[in-house]
């Protein structure tokens, strides 16, 4: 299978067989999902209340149990007691832990940002020392990047490392802020600047003299997870615990965040499904005016929109996982620098990872918000599950790079790829200008997904058009025009979303026939609405960078590209709601 270039979706069209979708899950994938869900429901969910109180030792015990089943080692090689389940398998585990409350957060932080730095950048000795314990749950990891004065600006860290006189230790001083799992972690991946200059990653053991913890933060949500400052006062870290190269800590930090981001996407989609499920159940049980509220159009419309966004997000998350698996499968695991090659492979999809993070965390916020609304006053009361879901959701737009930072990463990475000649962006933008002047292609709405494919194609053209104009007009100043970059990011996210859902649905229609009709309706509903958002992003952006006749010409080009027959979205929502309510859960 040929490797698809990261970011190329913006200028190229691909076919359904080139993307991985949930329709491709193997029997093993299904079993992985089921075991994880059964384990979480059976062993963890009954303890969610106690987890919320941060009962001593509880999470550790559960992590150990999860480790025994192999639920911590999906990303770890077999020779270090891992399962090598691939990114699809690992996403399925993450997605299916979501009924575990704080356990879910601990699990994701441990298996993601906690363990992966050693998986990808550890030396053989470091891997042998730490990975088996991390894969089985004997050891728990945490990731210490953020500091009180440097959050988004992670490279602005003040923590300092100085080599000891005998050359055997680095002496670390500084404070790390908001460290997930800190309360019970054994292994801390700490970033510090050697001599205050060279940003470097270190593996720091819990019992290191000079390492201590600040108090637990009192949080808005994910209250059961441990979040504490990690304080380093002359902490003596053996030189062999340098992770990766001195001065290359940013390579470790950012590559790990890429994976953290796609994993977070999977977790958000899982949580969204759970929120939808309880919302449907509640809507069926709750009666007002003598009828279940699930009878009311406005409630049905909410359920339809929730399901649709989840379907789209799920299509994106597994497409991303498939991309990662494809590129990672080409790496010789026995080679000494397999980990680095893998990190490099993952970096290829930095854009896709950021897109997933932003999209899925915003799906979850939308879904939990509507869930509270469907519950009415009861949604505001702690006794009901959605109250916690609503609070727990909010952090996802903040950690693993805020959604603003991720929005900046998307267009800037894309433009860099264009500049380096990895993606022929400029040529594509110029071609669009030419195409727009030619006659518009008629859309064959009779074909399955004919309209949707045309919308994806035209959304790409519109985005290229306004990105091209902005880049041309603003040149180097574009980096300072964040609102424009934000619009570009939003358009790129929508395009990836639309394309992912169309490709998936095309596959589903071919394989499942009639049963995929509701998927097709969700694809239509999403594409139609997203297309209008892309159009309006283009109009807003162009109006900000151009004036007069040039602006008018550009706007009329956008208008021409954006011409679309009206779609009965209310009708679509009704059909989607019927199915979702009949199934009683997200079942696509």
């Amino acid at each position, binding site marked *: 299978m040929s490797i698809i270039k990261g970011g190329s979706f913006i200028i190229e069209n691909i076919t359904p067989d080139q993307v991985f979708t949930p329709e491709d899950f193997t029997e093993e994938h299904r079993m*992985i999902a089921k075991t994880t869900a059964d384990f979480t429901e059976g062993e963890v969910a009954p303890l969610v209340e106690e987890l919320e109180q941060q009962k001593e030792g509880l999470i550790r015990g559960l992590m150990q149990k999860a480790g025994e*089943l192999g639920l911590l080692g999906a990303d770890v090689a077999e020779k270090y007691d891992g399962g090598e389940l691939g990114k699809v398998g690992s996403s399925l585990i993450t997605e299916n832990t979501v009924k575990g409350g704080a356990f879910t957060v601990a699990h994701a932080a441990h298996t993601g940002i906690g363990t992966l730095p050693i998986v990808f950048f550890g030396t053989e000795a470091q891997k042998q020392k730490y990975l088996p314990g991390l894969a089985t749950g004997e050891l728990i990891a945490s990731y210490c990047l953020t500091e009180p004065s440097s959050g988004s600006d992670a490279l602005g860290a003040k923590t300092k490392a100085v080599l000891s006189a005998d050359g055997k230790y680095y002496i670390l001083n500084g404070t790390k802020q908001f460290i997930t799992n800190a309360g019970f972690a054994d292994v801390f991946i700490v970033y510090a600047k050697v001599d205050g200059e060279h940003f470097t990653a270190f593996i720091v053991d819990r019992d290191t003299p000079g390492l201590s913890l600040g108090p637990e933060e009192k949080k808005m949500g994910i209250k059961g997870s441990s979040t504490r400052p990690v304080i380093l006062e002359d902490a003596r870290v053996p030189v062999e615990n340098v992770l990766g190269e001195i001065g290359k800590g940013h390579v470790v930090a950012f590559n790990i965040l890429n994976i953290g981001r796609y994993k977070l996407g999977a977790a958000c989609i899982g949580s969204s499904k759970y929120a939808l499920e309880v919302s449907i159940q509640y809507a069926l049980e709750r009666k007002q005016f003598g009828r279940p509220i699930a009878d009311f159009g406005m409630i049905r419309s909410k359920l339809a929109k929730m399901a649709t966004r989840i379907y789209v997000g799920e299509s994106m998350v597994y497409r991303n996982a498939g991309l990662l698996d494809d590129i990672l499968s080409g790496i010789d695991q026995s080679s000494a620098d397999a980990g680095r090659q893998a990190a490099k492979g993952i970096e290829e999809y930095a854009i896709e990872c950021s897109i997933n993070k932003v999209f899925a965390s915003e799906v979850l916020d939308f879904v939990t918000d509507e869930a509270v609304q469907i519950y009415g006053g009861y949604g505001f009361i702690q006794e009901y599950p959605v109250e916690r879901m609503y609070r727990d959701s909010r952090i996802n737009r903040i950690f693993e790079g805020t959604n603003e930072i991720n929005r900046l990463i998307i267009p800037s990475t894309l433009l860099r790829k264009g500049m380096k000649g990895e993606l022929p962006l400029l040529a594509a933008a110029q071609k669009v200008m030419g195409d727009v002047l030619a006659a518009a292609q008629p859309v064959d709405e009779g074909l399955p997904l004919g309209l949707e494919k045309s919308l994806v194609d035209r959304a790409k053209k519109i985005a290229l058009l306004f990105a091209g104009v902005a880049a041309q007009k603003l040149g180097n100043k574009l980096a300072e025009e964040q609102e424009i970059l934000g619009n570009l990011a939003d358009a790129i996210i929508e395009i990836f979303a639309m394309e992912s859902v169309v490709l998936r649905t095309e596959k589903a229609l071919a394989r499942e026939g009639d049963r995929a009709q509701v998927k097709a309706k969700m694809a239509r509903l999403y594409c139609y609405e997203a297309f209008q958002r892309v159009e309006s992003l283009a109009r807003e952006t162009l109006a900000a960078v151009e004036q007069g006749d040039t602006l008018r010409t550009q706007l009329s080009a956008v208008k021409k590209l954006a011409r679309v027959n009206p779609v009965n979205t209310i009708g679509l929502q009704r059909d989607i709601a019927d199915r979702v309510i009949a199934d009683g859960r997200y079942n696509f």
Partner: protein
Amino acid sequence: MKILVLMKQTFDTETKISLDANGKIDEAGVNFVVNPYCEFAVEEALRIKERLGAGEVTVLSVGPERAETSIRQCLAMGADKGVLVNTGGLEGGDEFTTAQIVAKAIEKVEYDIILAGFQAVDDGSAQVAPRVAELLGIPQVTVITKLELEDGKAIATREIDDGVEIIEVALPAIFTAQQGLAEPRYPSMKGIMQAKKKPMERYSLADLGLDAGLVGTDGAKVKIVELSLPTPRKGGKIVEGEPAEAAQKVVQLLRSEAKVI
């Protein structure tokens, strides 16, 4: 010790059952799982093997192609070998035909002991394993919650109405599992990845030398005339008032409205 487990694939108990246009149960979008009672049997088989430190657990299922996924689930839990008798279009049999097929298939398998779920959560007939025991001419102990093995014999504890019954039988014998026998384990990730590599024997009904007329709907002694969903429960009635007064009212209603007394 060679342990054979009979397993049925059933609907996930959380599945909402619906009927299709032909009045048949609609399988689209349904999750299929190992019948929970059979899962207890599989778990007990694995524990016996672990206790003895040796042995082989074979899981046999009769059903359509899709039943293979449930056999794999048992292999992922730790069973060693699967046997699928594919009914390939000749579904619609009953306990009688299923027992015939199972008994015939068992001729291909070595066993010292047979375990099964005491009933399946779908049909709930609790007949197949006892019928198989009769066909094989071996003892059966049903609805057991505990099983101890000593050389050549077994001591099983079974639930009866107002207590338990402890039964000793010579092996080979069939035991059917009740909840409480053994809480099933979760398949580990390692187990899941190994499941695909474990041996799976497949037989068609013809392979077993079974005549098409003797299985499926043709061979069944029970004919399904019609399927219908349970009528939805009507809302209840709350009788208000002082206890004594309310009780009187309830009796009145039970007599005049519900007509049950």
